[in-house]
């Protein structure tokens, strides 16, 4: 069986799963996409290094999506998570998707889940952030 593949290339599954950013070596700006250059106009650098992102964070903004494009299961919680100063877009998972169970400032940690297997039997792995229970 082939190793599982991550849903996106910035999810690293080796060892403890974590996210990795492309960090500009000039100014430290972090990006999750493939880069042509740094977007910080004060920098303009073209060199990047892969850096791990903290696996815990705080929900800085969220919405509970009840109406999405066809084929997308609803409701789900979409959020921006502040991971030690780096903002990450993710769903909040393993929580009831209602305003009583999701809150601004909530502490969360990275969690992964299986997305399914393809024709060759390879599993894909998704990620989200789940509440850290006290």
């Amino acid at each position, binding site marked *: 069986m082939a190793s599982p*593949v*991550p*849903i*996106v*290339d*910035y999810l690293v599954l080796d060892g403890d799963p974590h996210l990795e950013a492309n960090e500009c070596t000039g100014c430290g*700006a*972090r*990006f*999750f*996409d*493939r880069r042509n250059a740094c*977007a*910080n*106009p004060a920098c303009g650098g073209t060199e990047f290094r892969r850096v791990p992102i903290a696996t815990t964070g705080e929900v*800085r*903004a*969220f*919405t*509970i*999506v*009840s*109406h*999405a*494009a*066809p*084929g*997308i*299961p*609803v409701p*789900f919680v*979409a*959020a*921006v998570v502040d991971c030690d*100063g*780096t*903002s*990450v*877009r*993710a*769903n909040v998972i393993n929580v009831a998707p209602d*305003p009583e169970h999701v809150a*601004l*400032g909530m502490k969360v940690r990275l969690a992964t889940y299986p*997305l*399914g297997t*393809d*024709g*060759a039997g*390879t599993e*894909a792995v*998704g*990620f989200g952030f789940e509440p850290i229970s006290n």
Partner: protein
Amino acid sequence: MPSSDGVWILGIHMTKFGKHPDKDIVDLGAEAVLGALDDAGVRMRDMGVMAAGNLIGGGGLGIGQQIQKQVGQTGIPVYNVANACATGATALRTAVMAVKAGECDLGLAVGVEKLAGAGLLAGKDRKADADTWTPSGRYGAVAAVDGRIGTETMPGVFAQIGMEYGHKYGGTSFELFARIAEKNHAHSTLNPLAAYQKRFTVDEIMNDVMIAYPNTRSMCSANCDGAAAAVVVSGEKLKSLSLEQQRRAVKISASVLTTDPWEEACQILPTVNTLTRNAAQTAYEAAGIGPEDLDLVELHDCFATAELVHYDNLMLCKEGGAVDFFESGATWRDGATPVNVSGGLESKGHPIAATGIANIWEVCHHLRGEAGERQIDNAKVGLAHVIGLGSACGVHILEKAAV
């Protein structure tokens, strides 16, 4: 050299917003253009430049040329522009720049959209996952990410923008956002060109169909058909026109377009804040006017959650003070700074490319004293704001003629 007499709106027109099943985008665009020319007291043959916007399409290439083929093919340059929900403001600004540059004395801008029944405008239908996981795109994604890694829907993105403001400054709630929608729907009852003119109670708004918490359906901009067009004129040319034209002309005291400057997180959740603040700052300086001087504001309430943050971004209140500002009643039509007396995008409707000219039509209508039942008394200065995700922000400050 920019003319010291500036650039003025000579004529402006918006169609009824709503459902126009018997008209295509060319019909609606032509109606707006002919209306604006008539309002200006000039003809298509007087125009030196044309800028046109239509974002979602439906009529093939070159909306500007297609409208010309109905109203007058004079051979002038056409700039077909696209800038998300700021497309209309971009078209107007393009015509303003041509006049400012001295290339012509009279210019035309038009925005048109057919969106009635369009539903969600962002996010693609999710198809079945591929038979083999194959990374593609700039994130090396092996499967669709909308709904798995956050949301691409506009109601969801703007919900987070409002919630982020609440997290930063406190004081927001589902009910607060619903009361912003209550205000705009109440305002719409006085606007016969609005797509919807129904007043709702806060309970009705909160119990409406949930789209993306905290935005229910009646807190979202209404997809509809519509067009708006404006004729702009140089100050020097205006002096040669009739006293009546001079009296009804509205001065464009500032015309500003910005994009989102780099900041942490701006590529995670689209930001609408810094570029709006930058545009407003530049516009206030250009006009020599402060937010306290504004008699009315039409701002981009694509969702109730968005209106709140723009009180702050446009500096209508002190930084972090948007909740208190709204709670004071300032933004109702009888308040200190009436906001969206047209009913806003939530009830007037949001035919995307038309929006950035229609909000200027609304301000001009009041400055000319022609707004009928919803007239803001003695309005002399107004501001119109639009934002397109991606992002682009247009801010125009308009002043009543002194003639």
